[in-house]
């Protein structure tokens, strides 16, 4: 597994040696992320962007994803807009979000219609539980991969911020705005000192 891909596709500074993804490639990539994305699209975004296409390094992915998750709205929706616009301008943003949303919109309506008919069948419900459990596991694996650069031994404070955030929201279930209001300034302060 080679995840330390070279900076061969800086999304921030497209230049001659960077192969710009075409509109078609943008659409197909985000549609693929979407259609493979059971239990959320984070895992597949990382897999496609970092591991398969090599369009982003692990660190670039983390930074872009962090920016997107702090903006209101769906994280990967924001991700597709910003990624598409950096490579291909406003139309790129529209193409990326159309790829991400078009196919699942169609699917979810079909699923809704099926549910209206078969929602009470026990086997159907047990199948849903099975896939939901696997989806949670996949998300954990992705988080573990994303967290790897934090635990490189260069800092104690940075991984500690991640752990405290996890405990506050995931275990203690404190209100999100409150937790963010405290932890975000602290974390930015730590990053500032370490620059």
């Amino acid at each position, binding site marked *: 597994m080679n995840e330390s891909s070279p900076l061969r596709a800086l999304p921030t500074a497209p230049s001659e040696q960077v192969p710009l993804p075409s509109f078609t490639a943008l659409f197909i990539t985000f549609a693929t992320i*979407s259609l493979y994305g059971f239990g*959320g699209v984070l895992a597949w975004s990382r897999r496609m962007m970092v591991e398969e296409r090599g369009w982003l390094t692990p660190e670039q992915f983390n930074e872009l994803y962090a920016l997107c998750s702090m903006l*209101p709205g769906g994280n990967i*929706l924001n991700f597709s807009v910003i990624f598409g616009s950096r490579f291909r301008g406003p139309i790129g943003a529209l193409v990326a979000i159309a790829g991400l949303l078009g196919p699942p919109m169609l699917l979810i309506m079909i699923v809704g219609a099926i549910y209206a008919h078969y929602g009470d069948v026990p086997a159907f419900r047990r199948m849903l539980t099975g896939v939901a459990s696997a989806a949670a596991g996949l998300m*954990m694996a992705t988080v573990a991969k994303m967290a790897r650069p934090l635990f490189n031994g260069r800092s104690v404070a940075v991984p500690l911020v991640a752990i405290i955030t996890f405990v506050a929201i995931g275990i203690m279930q404190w209100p999100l705005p409150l937790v963010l209001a405290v932890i975000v300034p602290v974390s930015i302060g730590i990053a500032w000192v370490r620059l």
Partner: protein
Amino acid sequence: MKSGAGTLLTLAGFFAVLSLFSVGGGNSAVPEMHRYAVDVQHWLTDQQFADTFALAQLTPGPNLIIVALVGFHVAGVLGGVVAMLAMCGPTGVAAYFVGRASERFRGKMWHSAISRGLVPVTIGLTAASATVIATTADYGWTAGAVTVVTAVTCYFARINPIWVFAGAAALGLAGLV
């Protein structure tokens, strides 16, 4: 199933406002969506809402697709499309401009501090979301085992997760989960 311009407007207005408060991912908007759709508007029952959430988790695509499913339930295909556009339009435009601005300020000290500072917080939040998903619905020790096996497999092996999902679905159908 109601429809008509009034219902569509209500859907659009609600989701446009909701989108502006959903920081930290689509799942953070779920509690408020539940309160409005079930308790205020009576569009769905509690059970229907829980099922809608599970279906949205299990349909490929962003988790936010639950918005389209709620809209579909309320006002058919048009309702689904209107709800989704309302949820993504305003925040998409915001993301576009923030993305541009962020690019312009790249290299400034405060910009680097902010973008690096947000990373560990986001990772903590994502780990919390995984925990929340793992603890919703009927979740016994077999379901827990499926979660752990999936997590370990997908972390260490470059297996296509689709196969793990197919296996989990089969286990569920066989009544083993």
